[in-house]
């Protein structure tokens, strides 16, 4: 079920109304579990069984880890990690691994034709696997006690606002919220609705209507493009993916607030980042902190010397790229970000903290360099293969002076205007948050903005396009 569908509107109204009408906290939690499984099963009912089996296994493994001592604790954790990652590996990387295995054999002269596995990717598997995995990892790390309630853990993993496209909510962040029943607070509920409106506006109006068409046409064009169109296509995609994914996260946070739950921010104005470490503190925060806490730090983080820390960064970003999709283009995207981070760390080590680096003009310049480099990496993220990525890069750097121009002036204006206001908003709000901004704004402006966003959503109607991150 998509947030931008009529089914969800009706579903959400029914769930919220029933939820706040019930007095018993246990009954409310049962309702949320049922609603979450209906929400997930509405895509493909059999996959709800897969979701439950993963969850139940981790619930049991969590208890084993807590009970066990020393080596056997580690063994149970390895069991949990293997179970989760093999599930992810089979559904998401099965065909990719077979194709690469075939390629490797061909290099040494062995012709092998693997069967193409007709595997349907369960929607959101990358997200709920991480929700579930965080539970056993945190119990192993000693920061979380295993819950005694299977129902609570099932709800923590499958809570419908964040189930299929994040934010990646750790069990340790969610389970404590199931201790006491939240109270209905009018401000919190309305703020949740406003966030849902903002999220849908970002997705339906800005991502799908203003930017997606141009990005799709540019990346889908089979011929050479002039530099202007190539750059605009990439800039359009940079905006599209931000509004699409941040829109989903904002909707998820809003929907959770309407039910009395608190999810952390997943985006903090990432295109105003100054440097790549800053970018990853602002973009898909739930994934970057997950990778930091469960991969980068266990690998030694930056406590193991400069070279090893650089290797750790590259490993983390390589796996982060692969998490997004089973294709080498995603790996290159991850490796590019890994290299950016290494270069940034090296530059910091060489230059150190100088007074001039605090100058606003320098910050702005570094911010735009960061944005440009991030856009370059998006080429590999969006292109379905290296031929397209190479053609795009050649176009962007003037390799096709006589290439085609395919964007209408209207599309160019849309990309320019939306990107300008997006950058303006990111830079204006980079040191604060939406809540502060809304509190500071005049009431009439908040009212007008909310009404305009709602009207634009109705006007756009939406064609229930899936969110980009569903495929991950």
């Amino acid at each position, binding site marked *: 079920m998509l947030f931008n569908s009529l089914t969800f509107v009706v579903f959400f109204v029914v769930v919220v109304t029933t939820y706040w009408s019930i007095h018993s906290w246990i009954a409310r939690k049962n309702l949320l579990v049922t609603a979450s499984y209906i929400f997930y099963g509405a895509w493909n009912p059999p996959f709800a069984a897969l979701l439950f089996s993963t969850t139940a296994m981790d619930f049991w493994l969590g208890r084993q880890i807590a009970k066990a001592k020393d080596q056997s604790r580690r063994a149970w954790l390895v069991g949990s990690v293997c179970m989760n990652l093999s599930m992810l590996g089979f559904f998401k990387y099965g065909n990719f691994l077979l194709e690469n295995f075939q390629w490797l054999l061909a290099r040494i002269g062995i012709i092998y034709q693997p069967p193409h596995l007709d595997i349907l990717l369960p929607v959101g598997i990358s997200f709920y696997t991480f929700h579930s995995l965080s539970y056993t990892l945190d119990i192993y790390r000693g920061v979380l006690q295993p819950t005694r309630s299977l129902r609570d853990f099932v709800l923590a993993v499958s809570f419908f606002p964040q189930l299929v496209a994040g934010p990646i909510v750790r069990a340790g962040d969610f389970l404590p919220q199931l201790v006491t029943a939240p109270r209905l607070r009018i401000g919190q509920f309305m*703020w949740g609705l406003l966030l849902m409106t903002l999220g849908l506006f970002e997705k339906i109006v800005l991502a799908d209507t203003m930017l997606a068409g141009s990005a799709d046409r540019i990346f889908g064009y089979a011929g050479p493009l002039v530099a202007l169109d190539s750059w605009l296509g990439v800039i359009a995609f940079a905006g599209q993916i931000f509004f699409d994914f941040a829109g989903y996260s904002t909707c998820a946070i809003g929907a959770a607030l309407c039910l009395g739950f608190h999810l*952390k921010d997943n985006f903090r104005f990432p295109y105003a980042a100054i440097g790549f470490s800053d970018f990853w503190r602002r973009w898909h925060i739930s994934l970057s902190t997950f990778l930091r806490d469960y991969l980068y730090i266990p690998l030694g983080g930056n406590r193991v010397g400069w070279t090893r820390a650089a290797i750790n960064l590259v490993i983390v970003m390589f796996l982060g790229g692969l998490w997004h999709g089973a294709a080498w283009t995603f790996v290159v995207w991850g490796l590019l970000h890994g290299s950016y981070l290494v270069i940034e760390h090296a530059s910091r080590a060489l230059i150190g903290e100088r007074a001039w680096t605090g100058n606003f003009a320098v910050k702005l310049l570094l911010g735009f360099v960061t944005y440009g480099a991030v856009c370059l990496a998006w080429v590999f993220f969006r292109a379905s293969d290296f031929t397209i990525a190479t053609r795009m890069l050649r176009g962007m750097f003037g390799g096709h002076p006589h290439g085609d121009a395919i964007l209408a002036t209207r599309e160019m204006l849309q990309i320019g205007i939306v990107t300008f206001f997006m950058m303006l908003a990111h830079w204006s709000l980079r040191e604060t948050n939406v*809540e502060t901004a809304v*509190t500071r704004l005049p009431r009439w402006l908040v009212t007008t903005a909310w*009404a305009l966003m709602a009207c634009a959503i109705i*006007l756009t*109607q939406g064609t229930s396009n899936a969110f980009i991150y569903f495929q991950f």
Partner: protein
Amino acid sequence: MPSSTSNFKRILQLPRLFFRKPTEAESVHGGPPLEFERPIPQIPWRGITVVVVVVVIAAACAWEFYCRSIGYGPTLNDNEDLWTMTRQRVKPESVVIIGDSRGWFDLDLDELQKGLGKRPVQLAMGGGCGYPVLADLADDKTFHGTIICSFVPRLFFAPPGTPPMERGEKAVRRSHTQTPAQHVSEYLAMPLEEHVAFLKQEELTLDDLLKRLPIPNRPGARVPPRGPPYFGTLDRERRARMIEECARPGSELQKRIQQIWLPLFTPPPPPSYIPTDVFMAKMKDAIEKRARDTIAAVKKLRARGGKVIFVRLPVTGGLKALEDKTTPRNQTWDPLLKGTGAPGIYFEDFPELATFNCPEWSHLSAGDSVEFSKRLVPHLRAALGM
């Protein structure tokens, strides 16, 4: 006196979460109570919400009145989910209409039911290529009914990757992969679309309104031509009917659509990055492959008792001249019938079918479609051996 900033600091506590050892009671639920809370802006929410709701309802009503005042009426949107719901009505022995918008507008289901004894299932689609649907029905082993395929050469032979082909493929794909949520969404959308005029996905959306802005393009920019504006309605059986304004002789809407068909039906220039001769050879290969695939699909259907009949429905005015020039009958229609061995009805071959006028050159008016279908029935019966 505290500054406004310090007030904000108090109101908007930064998110934080930390762990302490849970009590025995708390450990049942996995940990201590939450210490992370999202900040909530302290503003008069009730008043703001009431104003927003009133403004949005008023704006939606005003937009609805405006849309109706300029000629729009409520109609269903033709999307993949509606198509899928119609596809699910196909029974093993159904009569099915496939192809393009002429099959959609020109064939009246009531008249065909009277003449053929079965109510046809309407699977033709606006701007769509009929081949993916033909192939899907040929692959459906339970189906052995009758297919009436509307044939417009430029659409039927549209190469893979072009909008007509993609439209057909998307619809077929959706019919195999539709999720329960998509099915329910369509059920919920239909009553709304039947009563609200502005709910038109291909005409009154923000995207379409932006496309109407008179902004000139760069010289030489390869921008795809625009599709026609709203000129028909659709019911739950996917029967399309031309609106009166379009059928009214000499109406502005009619003239506007006529001028839109011409660039849409004009072959686009070869891409700049492929030599013309190579491109033309590729196109020829694609058309030949489509012909071969069509022959195979028809054969497959016939092998289990199914029937296929191709129909060339009326086209008039400048569009007819353009189609005759760019896709002449002897290079498209004749080889198709010869290759498939299927019967065909070409409107020009029969005086009683050739006298109809298409108001916007491509489709019959709602009234004419009834009369046309009545006259078509005897030919269909003869071709099907009934």
